[in-house]
């Protein structure tokens, strides 16, 4: 696992949220790697801990109530969890940048977008004002915003949803980071705009050969963008592999269930497969395999033993002993 080729390596990360007398184990032992230049997807339903994992990489978990209980986040071999706050600030935005889900609320309404993009650059680099302006214009042009010179002076509310998300991406690109974490960047957008943004991310990634950690719940998006996929359920990664392995040969009941539950024209007339029940409350997770109450393959050991990762092929791992072969 500690492959030196990895740009980022998350190892056994645990993040708990404390509330009164309960402990919500939002992220409960998550490990995955990102190699330079590849797009890794973190898929899962709401509340499975994917956003928390992403925020923990940048150490942006609000604390309290959030608490990092263990694990390592190795970025170029350095454990980000050991860094002090000032060193961490040098990583954020400069080496790892983030794009958030809601472009409207994620942009500060009282500053112009020029200010907000430029700010990220000035904090990490020494730039002349004229140079800075040029770079901001170029960034906006790169993300496909028409007449960028004028747009610099606009406030976020003057842009459309798609344009705001482009601005967010421009902000993330400002310091040429090695890794961009995109947390459901297209969920709040319309399909046509989503397609634009996905294409934009793909083209940027190819051009600048940076790595992308893409977080989503939409399997269609995953299939479209991912090199490798990590499927999360209830705070753990239940299956990982490349996109073809996951979509064509899923080896975990949850992944299988998700794929079978997708509606589509090709499934017309047939009943959709549905996973019974609901995602467990992270404070009251069932013992053993967290998926066993909803799993149709569950056997007796699933109720008591937390399953280990089983290897299915080159880089294809799944946390299910029953569907092993």
């Amino acid at each position: 696992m500690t492959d030196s080729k990895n740009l980022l390596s998350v190892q056994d990360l645990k993040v708990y949220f404390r509330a009164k007398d309960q402990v919500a184990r939002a992220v409960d032992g998550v490990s995955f790697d990102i190699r330079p230049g590849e797009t890794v997807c973190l898929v899962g339903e709401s509340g499975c801990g994917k956003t928390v994992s992403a925020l923990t990489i940048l150490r942006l978990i609000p604390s309290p109530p959030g608490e990092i209980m263990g694990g390592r986040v190795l970025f170029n071999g350095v454990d980000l969890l050991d860094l002090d706050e000032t060193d961490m600030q040098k990583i954020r935005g400069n080496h790892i940048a983030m794009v958030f889900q809601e472009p409207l609320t994620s942009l500060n309404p009282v500053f112009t977008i020029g200010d907000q993009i430029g700010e990220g650059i000035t904090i990490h680099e020494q730039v002349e004002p004229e140079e800075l302006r040029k770079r901001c214009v170029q960034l906006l042009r790169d993300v496909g915003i028409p007449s960028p010179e004028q747009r610099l002076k606009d406030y976020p509310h003057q842009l459309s949803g798609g344009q705001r998300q482009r601005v967010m991406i421009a902000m993330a690109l400002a310091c040429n980071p090695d890794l961009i974490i995109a947390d459901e960047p297209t969920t709040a957008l319309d399909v046509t705009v989503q397609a634009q943004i996905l294409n934009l991310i793909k083209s940027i990634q190819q051009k600048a050969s940076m790595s992308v950690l893409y977080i989503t719940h939409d399997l269609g998006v995953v299939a479209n963008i991912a090199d490798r996929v990590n499927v999360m359920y209830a705070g753990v990664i239940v299956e990982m592999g490349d996109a073809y392995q996951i979509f064509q040969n899923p080896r975990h009941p949850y992944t299988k269930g998700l794929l079978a539950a997708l509606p589509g024209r090709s499934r017309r007339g047939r009943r959709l497969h549905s996973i019974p029940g609901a995602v467990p409350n992270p404070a009251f997770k069932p013992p053993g395999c967290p998926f066993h109450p909803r799993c149709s393959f569950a056997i007796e050991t699933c109720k008591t033993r937390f399953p280990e990762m089983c290897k299915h092929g080159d880089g294809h791992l799944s946390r299910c002993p029953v569907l092993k072969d």
Partner: protein
Amino acid sequence: MTNHKLPITNQNITLRVEGLKKYFPVRRGFFQRTAGWIKAVDGIDLDIEPGKTLALVGESGCGKSTVAKVILRLIEPDEGKLIYKGNDIVNLSHKKMKHLRKEMQIVFQDPFGSLNPRMTVGQTIEEGLRGMDLSKRERRDRRDELLEMVGISAISSDRYPHEFSGGQRQRVGVARALSVSPSLIICDEPVSALDVSIQAQIINLLKDLQDRLGLSYLFISHDLNVVGYLSDKVAVMYLGHIMEYANTEELFETPLHPYTLALLSAVPVAEPDKRLELKSLSGDVPSPLDPPPGCKFQGRCPQVEERCREEEIGFARVSEDHLVRCWKVGGR
């Protein structure tokens, strides 16, 4: 080229919407004069057949939710007819409308906002049963029956909404709509706020209920995958206009309007083999406050020509059930 017209063949139609318009005034200036109109719904025609599902598809801001509200008469239409089982209900008196209300119900998108947090789910469902002549006992039985029908155990009828998960709340919402035994349910994006695994449960539930009770659905959605799975007919809406109207099979096989085409090709498919460059439209949906003249889609249309910029375009009938609002098709 006919201007509009749905096929008149089928007289047995649950709800026919004809030339429906709803404009919202925009007031400005010292005297708050009406400076312009947001043409949220600009003359649309729909037919909802009994036991069938008509999907209304479009991006946010295209006016689909306004259509839902106008049909339920929560907003008064400015123009047009709503013909429910042969009778125009636009000019009905309050009393008659109150009776008719029970024939059309709605299921909402947001499972959190759609249930009253201060009422138990049992009370929520009983609200619909209050108007009927039922004894307390009968009412309770009916309530329990409705809850079981949507897959919630009747024991939990004295629980409050916050104790339920999103999917369960959505089920309660469906049960509430069913409480008055409607014949038409307007589903306003009922599954888009739900996770995939829960979404499938609700879709199955809706389908089961349709089969059992013979309900008609007006299924409002932006998710073409769900629409393709669930609906019998599809109307594609853009800026207050219907752009294309067809049987689901036909629409997905042979989409004719450039907008429909763009929508369909923008949907990512969950198969890595089909990982082509997603075809995306340029730009965003223009503001409905001052829509472009001529074809509403002209600003983003890849095949736009001079004619589109000038003339308002009517429907062209391609086949019995397939209408398209585009010159290219009409010119054949």
